[in-house]
C-alpha cells in the first residue's frame, strides 16, 4: 500500500448509481479516501428522476422503491439527508378487462376475501410463509455469498449458518422451502390460488425485470429473493421527487461521510500495473491513481470494456461473455393533460400500482414472443401514476404515467430503429382497454427500449439487474465463479453493482457488501 500514500485516493468507485454511492459511503466511513466517478451529468444511474417532456419529470428507470432494506436506509441516514416518502405501503390493483379489478395490499386482503375467501386465506398464508423464509434466508441472501470448496472459517460459518437456519424453520417449512425453491411460479400458483387475476399479479412479481416467464424454472426463487432481500417488508414506496431523490440523498450521505463525487467523468479504462489495479483513465485522458477500484458497472462493461481481457484468464473471460444479460424490459413514460379514467376504478385506487397481467397464462404468452426476439403482442404492464402522491413531478393539474413493459427484447429481430413507435402504440392500446380515453390526454410519449436503457444508463444489454437473476447466476456464482465475493481475479479490482450478489433492483446491498469486502481485504 506504499504507492497509495502518494496518491490522493485510496479507492475509486466507478459509477454514481445507488450501489456506487452506497459503496462509497461505507468506504468513506471505513476511513478510505474515496472518489466516485459518474459518467453522466447527474448521479443515480438507473435510479434517477429526469424530465422527459417540458415540465414533466419521471423516475426514468426504476419507478418504485421496495427492495432497499429499511435497516440499510437507517444506517445510511437517508432520512437525515432529506429523503421523504411520498407514499408507502402502496396497494396493488390487478386490472381486469371486464372492469372487475382486484385490489389487495399489505395487510389488506378484504377485497380479495370478498371475491374469494379461499384465495385470501391462501395469500395470507403464503405471505406469512414467505416472511418466515425471508427471516431464515435474509442473512445469507443479503450478505457476502460464501465460497464453496474453501476451508476458510468465514465461508464454512456462512454455509453452516444457512443450513442451521433452514433446519430451524421446522420440518414442515424446511420441506416446503426445499420443494418450491427450484420450482416455476406457475406450478406454485396452481397449487395455492384459484383467481386468475391474483395468479397473474403474483406471476408478474416473479418475472419482473427478468428473462423468465411464469413457467420458467427458478421463478419461485425470484419471489423468495425479492421478499428476503427487503427483510420481508416488501412495502412499495414512492420517494418524494421520484427515485432520483433517493440518489440525491445517497449522494449527500456519501459526501457527508467524506467521499468526493464527480459527475460527467466517464472512465475509459482501468489501469493495471504489475498485476495490481493502479487507477483509472478518464475519457478525457486524465489519470487518477488508486490501489483499489470498485466498479458498479455491469460485469461485461467492467471486465471486457473497462479492464480488457488481456488482464484476465481466457476461461474467465469466456464465463463473463456468457453472463446472461439480455434485457427484456421497456419503460413507457406518458405526459398526461389530466388524470386518466380507468373503467371501474376510483381515483383513490390509482395511487397504487396497477398491473396488466390478468392471468399467469397471459404473462407466459407475453413471454413467448420474447423467446423469438419479438415484442409481446399483449404485453404485461406495471403502471404507476406518481403525480397523485407527488404532484410536483408535473405542472399543476397534469399527470405522469410511468409504465414498466414486458416483454421487449433487446435483440428485437425487426430492429428497434423502426419499432419504437409501433410498440409504444401497442402499449397505449393495451392501456386503452382499461382506460379508454387515455390516448386523448397524452401530451408526450417517451419509450425506453432496452437499447435506450443500455445507452442512457450504460448497462450492457439494457438488463435492469445487470445480469439475469436466476439460479445459475445466483449467490456464489453471481456474476461468475471467480468474481462472486465482490473480488475479481485482478488484485485491487472489486465489483459493487447489481451484477453482484444479491443483485438488481434498487437495493444497495451489493454496494454495502463490496465496501465491507474491500475494507476486510485492506485490513
Amino acid at each position, binding site marked *: 500500500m506504499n504507492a497509495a500514500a502518494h496518491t490522493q485516493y485510496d479507492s475509486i468507485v466507478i459509477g454514481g448509481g445507488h450501489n456506487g454511492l452506497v459503496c462509497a459511503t461505507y468506504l468513506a466511513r471505513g476511513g478510505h479516501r474515496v472518489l466516485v466517478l459518474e459518467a453522466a451529468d447527474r448521479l443515480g444511474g438507473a435510479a434517477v428522476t429526469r424530465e422527459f417532456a417540458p415540465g414533466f419529470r419521471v423516475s426514468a428507470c426504476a419507478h418504485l422503491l421496495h427492495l432497499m432494506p429499511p435497516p440499510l436506509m437507517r444506517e445510511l441516514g437517508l432520512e437525515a439527508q432529506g429523503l421523504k416518502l411520498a407514499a408507502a405501503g402502496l396497494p396493488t390493483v390487478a386490472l381486469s378487462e371486464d372492469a372487475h379489478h382486484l385490489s389487495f395490499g399489505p395487510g389488506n386482503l378484504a377485497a380479495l376475501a370478498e371475491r374469494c375467501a379461499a384465495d385470501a386465506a391462501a395469500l395470507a398464508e403464503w405471505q406469512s410463509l414467505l416472511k418466515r423464509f425471508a427471516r431464515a434466508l435474509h442473512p445469507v441472501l443479503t450478505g457476502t455469498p460464501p465460497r464453496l470448496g474453501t476451508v476458510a472459517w468465514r465461508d464454512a460459518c456462512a454455509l453452516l449458518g444457512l443450513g442451521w437456519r433452514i433446519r430451524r424453520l421446522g420440518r414442515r417449512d424446511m420441506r416446503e422451502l426445499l420443494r418450491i425453491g427450484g420450482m416455476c411460479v406457475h406450478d406454485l400458483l396452481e397449487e395455492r390460488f384459484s383467481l386468475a387475476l391474483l395468479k397473474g399479479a403474483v406471476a408478474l412479481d416473479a418475472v419482473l425485470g427478468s428473462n423468465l416467464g411464469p413457467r420458467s424454472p427458478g421463478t419461485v426463487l425470484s419471489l423468495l429473493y425479492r421478499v428476503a432481500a427487503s427483510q420481508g417488508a416488501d412495502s412499495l414506496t414512492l420517494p418524494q421527487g421520484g427515485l432520483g431523490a433517493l440518489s440525491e440523498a445517497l449522494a449527500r450521505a456519501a459526501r457527508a461521510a467524506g467521499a468526493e463525487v464527480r459527475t460527467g467523468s466517464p472512465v475509459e479504462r482501468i489501469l493495471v500495473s504489475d498485476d495490481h489495479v493502479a487507477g483509472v483513465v478518464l475519457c478525457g485522458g486524465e489519470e487518477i491513481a488508486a490501489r483499489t477500484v470498485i466498479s458498479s458497472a455491469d460485469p461485461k462493461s467492467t471486465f471486457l470494456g473497462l479492464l480488457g481481457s488481456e488482464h484476465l484468464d*481466457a476461461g474467465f473471460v469466456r464465463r463473463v*461473455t456468457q453472463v446472461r444479460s439480455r434485457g427484456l424490459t421497456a419503460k413507457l413514460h406518458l405526459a398526461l393533460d389530466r388524470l386518466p379514467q380507468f373503467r371501474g376504478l376510483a381515483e383513490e385506487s390509482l395511487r397504487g400500482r396497477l398491473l396488466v397481467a390478468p392471468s399467469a397464462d397471459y404473462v407466459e404468452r407475453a413471454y413467448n414472443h420474447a423467446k423469438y426476439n419479438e415484442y409481446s403482442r399483449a404485453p404485461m404492464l406495471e403502471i404507476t401514476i406518481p403525480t397523485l402522491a407527488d404532484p410536483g413531478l408535473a405542472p399543476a393539474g397534469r399527470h405522469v404515467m410511468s409504465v414498466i413493459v414486458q416483454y421487449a427484447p433487446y435483440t428485437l429481430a425487426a430492429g428497434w430503429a423502426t419499432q419504437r413507435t409501433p410498440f409504444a402504440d401497442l402499449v397505449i392500446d393495451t392501456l386503452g382497454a382499461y382506460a379508454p380515453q387515455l390516448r386523448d390526454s397524452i401530451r408526450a410519449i417517451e419509450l425506453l427500449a432496452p437499447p435506450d436503457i443500455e445507452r442512457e444508463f450504460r448497462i450492457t444489454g439494457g438488463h435492469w439487474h445487470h445480469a439475469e437473476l436466476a439460479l445459475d447466476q445466483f449467490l456464489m456464482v453471481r456474476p461468475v465463479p471467480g468474481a462472486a465475493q465482490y473480488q475479481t481475479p485482478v488484485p485491487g479490482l472489486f465489483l459493487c453493482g447489481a451484477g453482484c450478489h444479491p443483485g438488481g433492483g434498487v437495493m444497495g446491498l451489493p454496494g454495502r457488501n463490496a465496501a465491507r469486502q474491500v475494507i476486510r481485504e485492506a485490513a
Partner: protein
Amino acid sequence: MLTESEPHYRQPLLKTPFHERARELSQLDSFVPWAGYSTVDVFTSVEQEYFAIRNASSLYDLTPMVKYRISGADALRFLNRLVTRDIRRLGPGRVAYAVWCDDAGHLIDDGTVFCIAPNEYRLCTAERQLDWLRVSAIGFDVEIREVTEEVAALAVQGPTSAKLLKAVGLAGVERLKPFGHGEFTMPRAAGAGAGAIPMMVSRTGFTGDLGYELWMQPADAESVWDALMEVGRTRAVRPVGSRALNMVRIEAGFVLPNVDFVSAAHALYLGTERSPLELGLAWLVDFNKGHFTGRRALLAEQARGPRRRLVGLDIEGTKPAHNALLYTARSGKKEAGSVTSATWSPTCKRNLALAMVEAPYIATGSTVWAEIYLNRELVWERRMVRARVVERPFYAPQRRHATPPADF
C-alpha cells in the same frame, strides 16, 4: 483430403500429400491415426529407422501437425496472453517452443510459434485448439484460421540433413540457426515443370538432433519427397514412422501431450491435469512478461512448492520400463510415481524413461524403484529395478547447435 464424392464417414482418416509415396515404401503397411490423418507407424523396422535419424537422415511426414495462421493488429498481444513464455522478442524468421494453460495453470497443449512477419504468426499444435484459441481471442483484434490442409510438412532430421537439403538445391539452409526459419526455393527435377518449388524451411524438430522441417504447398509434396529420396539413395536416407521418432524424442527429453501429460481440455478426473511447472517446463514460464492465462494459478503453485515433477530416469538393466509404477523402496510398499514414456536408448546405451515422480524424489540423484513386467517366451516376470533421477535431455549432441552444420 475430403472430396464431395467421398463423404467423411466413408473416409474416416485423411491422407496426407505424402501418403502415396509412404504407402509404396511401407513394408509393414502399418498406419496409425494422427489428428485425423493416416500416418506411418513403422516403415520397415523401428531400429533401422531410429539409426537413420541418429546416424544419417530421415524423412518424417508431419503434415497432420495442426497449423493455425494467426494475424491481425493484436496477434502478438494475443499470443503473449495465450502462451506462458515471453514471445514479445520473437522476431520474423524465428520460432519458439511454447505451452499454454487453462485458468488453473493446467497444460492444454504444446506447440511452436513461427513469427512470419510482424503480427503474422503460425502456431503448430499437436491437437486441434480452435475452441481455446477463439475463447482466448475475445477482446483481441486477431484472425485465426486453420491452415493444416493447406500446408504439407516434412521433417528432415539427422546429422547429414543439412548436406542432404543442400544437395537437393536448397542453397543457404546451412545458415539457418536453431529455431530460425526462412523462405527457400528448390529447383524442380528435369521435365517436372517450370519454376522452382517455394517452401519455408525451419531449423526445428522433435529429435533433439540436427534437423529441419520443410513447409510446402501440398501440390509440391511428392516432388520434394522424390528429390530427397533420390539424392538420399546413396546416403542411407530413410522415411521413418512415429515409433522411431518416439525413441529419439524420449532421448531428447521432449514431452508428448496425452502421453506424458493429459491435456486439461480432455482430463475428466480431478487431479490428473498437469502444470508446466510439474512437467519441468518452468523455463517456458515467464512471470514477468505481463498477464497470461494461468499466470495467477502458476504463481500460487510456485509459492506452494511442487507436489510432483516429470523427471528423467536412468533405469538399471535393459528392459524398457513401459507404464511402470515407481516405488520408494524395493519392497514396493509405497508408490512414488509412474513412468509416462520409456525406451531403451541405442545411442546412450541406457535404459531411459520420463516419469512423474512425487515431490520428495524429484531431485537429481534420487533413487526410486521401477516395477517392470517382463515377458520371457510368454512367461511373465516381475522385476523391481533401481532407477536414478537424472538430468534431461539424455542425449544432446553438439551438432544440433552448430551453425553451419558439419558438411558430410
